[in-house]
């Protein structure tokens, strides 16, 4: 149906998409997880109540989350260039993806941690646990299944963002869909890439949910 070159291109696209998505998710968690923890800890009912810090973090996160991804990509071109040395290709796309995803992940982490029953935290306090111990031995392990569900949501959202990056010269399946499907009217290629994206999302989502379910000892 397709030439060898086209098959290779699509294979490469899959590789790039997975590369962008997974690396971005990982790096975004490096920032988002501590940010989410900080949000929960500094909350007025948290283990380290600190209203000022909590508000500032909240505002920064909300600002970052309210900038449309397309505009964010253009906005931070200088930063992207400074970090990766280029503004096109998959590696360059990781920078805006991380910046867009980290605050989103922080909110996901925040809501997962807030699901942990306050009574359990109180019990740990009554045993003389330090705030750090409560964070790492109570909140994170107790929220683990929910955090894993969150990561499945995060990774699929980042995947769809990564496809958008094709517009400004990012790589991956999104770029192929735009370049061949939109600009060259090769509808079949567009459909194929969309189907592939759907399949990848399904696999990532299902795997994430399965892992989350297996790790949950509540049922």
């Amino acid at each position: 149906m397709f030439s060898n070159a086209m098959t290779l291109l699509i294979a490469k696209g899959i590789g790039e998409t997975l590369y962008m998505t997974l690396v971005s998710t990982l790096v975004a968690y490096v920032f988002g997880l501590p940010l989410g923890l900080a949000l929960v800890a500094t909350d007025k009912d948290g283990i380290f109540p600190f209203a000022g810090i909590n508000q500032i973090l909240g505002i920064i996160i909300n600002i970052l989350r309210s900038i449309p991804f397309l505009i964010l990509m253009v906005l931070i071109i200088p930063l992207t260039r400074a970090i990766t040395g280029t503004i096109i290709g998959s590696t360059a796309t990781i920078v805006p993806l991380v910046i867009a995803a980290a605050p989103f992940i922080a909110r996901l982490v925040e809501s997962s941690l807030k699901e942990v029953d306050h009574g359990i935290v109180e019990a740990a306090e009554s045993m003389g646990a330090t705030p750090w111990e409560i964070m790492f031995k109570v909140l994170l392990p107790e929220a683990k299944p929910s955090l894993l569900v969150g990561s499945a949501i995060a990774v699929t959202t980042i995947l769809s963002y990564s496809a958008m990056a094709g517009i400004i010269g990012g790589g991956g399946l999104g770029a192929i869909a735009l370049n061949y499907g939109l600009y060259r009217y090769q509808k079949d290629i567009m459909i194929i890439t969309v189907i592939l994206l759907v399949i990848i999302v399904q696999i990532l989502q299902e795997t994430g949910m399965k892992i989350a379910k297996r790790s949950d000892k509540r049922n």
Partner: protein
Amino acid sequence: MKNSDAIIRLQDLCKTYQSKNTTVYALDKINLEIKRGEIFGIIGMSGAGKSTLVRCINLLEKPTSGDVIFDNQNLTLLSPQKLREARRSMGMIFQQFNLLMQRTALENVCFPMEIAGIKKQEAQARAAELLEIVGLADRKNSYPSQLSGGQKQRVAIARALATNPKVLLCDEATSALDPNTTRGVLELLKDINKRLGITVVIITHEMSVIEEVCQRVAIIDSSKIAEIGTVEQIFTSPKSDAAKHLIYQEPKKENSFQEKENRCCRIVFNGGTAFEPILGKMILECQDTVNILYANTKNIDGEVYGEMIVQLPKDDRSANRMLAYLKNTNVQAEEVDYV
């Protein structure tokens, strides 16, 4: 030191919450002494402040003013680090058990020892031992979701005992359990108190829990201590309205059918007189009958106590004669409004 037999002493303890223009008193000048080795009950209706009170004992809630003296140490003056150390000498169990859901029973019991820096192997051995004490040796690898309510509370008790506490604080520990399971858990608490000599503080809204295990009890009503004394004292002659309410609360619900015009009398038997046919003799003597509305005998800490509420005859002369008769015997009798 003064009062060295008191393990917990609360002095003028106040806890207030500030809302916009008013100050709400959750605890109002609480003075309380809990003796080493006793089982002490704190009872009150919901909203009376008893949960706040127990949380002030280990400073999960910071009192607004007043002192908490635990084992001759003023907790309110301690640094956070010292306070955490002191908390290890106070186990606590909760109504909702508050177990770590992602850990097995054994791992849950290991948790406080992990925090206290006890070696893992040592902790696991001790945890297994504790689970055996609470009768759950065979469930040590179960997760909380696989255990019943009573079993969860037993795990929580084992966990609370892990760091060899001097005091066990129980916050409505049996309120989420059915009567049979409640009895089992209370038996366990009694046993722990006897065998390990741990002081037990029980917070509850159920008089039956107090009767079953406590030696002394404080009644807390609208943020204040209404009455304090031995369980026998409070049970046989409650003075405060709150105490009376709590003691009569149960029969009241069961019987609301009798006519109002009949006078009622509450007769309290204690110890020896519980087995004398006082009522029978009275009926023969006074030549009139009474209607028994409620009767109950209870075993309070090894002695038999009985309570009975009878409806006196409509005829005032017979009724008065009966009251006079009862006054001359060694039972306590008082006229009560009983509707």
